[in-house]
């Protein structure tokens, strides 16, 4: 079953609407102030449905990654090897973003290295965010 990724469930919409404008933001509860990820209709910590979307800092940190050497998903357009990365952001505990690192030799990847986002829109209109080593600009 292919999912139409140009339309989103209601509680995913804020993330993708912001991402389309090149803003990465994550849901935080207005009651207990806990972040959560992936998006849920209400706060999994306290149950409140009052959530705000908080923009991430300009850079994140590489929590972990893998270099994938086999094709697992026929729907995924890229050929191996490719990097899948988990990115964390300062001040946003409870959030790890699944993405990829580009423009970096795999032997230069390091746990906790600082990375910055860049944005793409797919031919189907789906916004995506990738990361590369932070330039310090």
């Amino acid at each position, binding site marked *: *079953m292919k*999912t139409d*990724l140009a339309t*989103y*469930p209601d509680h*995913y919409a804020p993330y*993708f609407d912001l991402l389309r404008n090149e803003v990465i933001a994550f849901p935080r509860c207005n009651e207990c102030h806990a972040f959560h*990820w*992936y*998006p*849920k209709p209400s706060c*999994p910590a306290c149950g409140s449905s009052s959530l705000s979307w908080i923009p991430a800092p300009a850079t994140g940190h590489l*929590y*972990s*990654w*893998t*270099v*994938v*050497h*086999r094709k*697992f*998903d*026929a*729907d*995924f357009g*890229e050929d191996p090897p*490719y990097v*899948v990365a*988990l990115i964390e952001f300062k001040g946003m505990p*409870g*959030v*790890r973003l*699944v*993405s*990829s690192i580009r423009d970096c030799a*795999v032997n230069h990847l390091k*746990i906790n290295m600082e990375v910055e986002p860049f944005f793409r829109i*797919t031919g189907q209109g*789906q916004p*995506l965010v990738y990361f590369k080593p932070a330039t310090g600009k």
Partner: protein
Amino acid sequence: MDDICIVGIGETQPTRVSDKTVDLLVLDAIDAAIEDAGLSRADIDGVVSDGIYGPRAISPQRVAAHLGKADMWTGGRSVGGAAIMSAPALAAEAIRAGRANTVVFYFGMDGGSRKGGPSSNHNRFQAKAYFEKPYGFTGQPIYFAPWARRYFSVFPGGERALATIATSASHNAHLTGRAQRPDLLSEEDYWNGPMIADPLRLRDCCVISDGAGAYILTTSARARNCRKHPVKVLASTLATPPYAGDDVFTQYGDMLSLPGAKEAAREAFAVSGLAPRHISFAEIYDCFTISCLLQLEDLGFCEKGEGADFASEEHIGRNGNLPINTHGGFLAYSYLLGIEHVVEATRQLRGEAGPSQIANAEIGLVSGLSMPDYGVMLLARD
């Protein structure tokens, strides 16, 4: 809960692709378990499986029809590996309530022949399509590789432990004469294996299988009339941390402990009055070498971070003080989410494991993971 025993076990021959459909494999396994127990189909009055895979392979109603019994008690619990370990607790409730006397647990899957392989099951998670698949985060080796890298970065020496877990599993599988990977893996072979999802190599990853298994539960009083020596179920526990299933591989904790493992083990030891030092062998959910390593720590066999030293041949090898995966586990025997682990533990406790029989098999721990659920079963020679 030592009034409940396993009295019969059945499994199909480990294979990647079977020429039978999974529903027929399940019925074969059930009939083998009934025969093993010295019972007949008419003796079975309860059917239990997990809540998703088992009933999708074959409905409990069809199993009941196969057994030819009206008013069958049926139940389902959790999913996959965690269900296989925690189903006896559910069956025990039915037996104590007088709803059933003799309950069969079944589990079968078509991981080898299913289109898209075992990971196609994860397409049921809505978040996966939006937040993971667009970046190529699909496939179990990809899920566990970041955990391995994280472990290596915090606890040096983990790489060596993964090699030992893989070669030890291969050695045990070879002895069974039935394993899907019957070759004897040397350490050199391990390191020379191709990377699948770096840092996980080929032999860090389990096989994939078509197949089925079953076990039969009844009271210890009825067990005495069965053909084989009964195996007591000392504990059967389930723990479920609050994760949705789609988020657990990427968001759970510090990625150094598996969800639910510690809690399910703590409860199993509490209800049985036992401690990790009493366990004579363990069949651990070894979908990957790294998940096996994490569980050695999470289950309490060693402290967090000590797994790399603990996972040496002198501890986990078949002559060690805690032999693990005595049939070769998922890494080399078959990948049916742990039903083969229960079958193997029962064989060991009966002294029926033949060339792969270990010495002094008195109490076995069997573990099942199906993120975020985790189940633990403690079994003992009656």
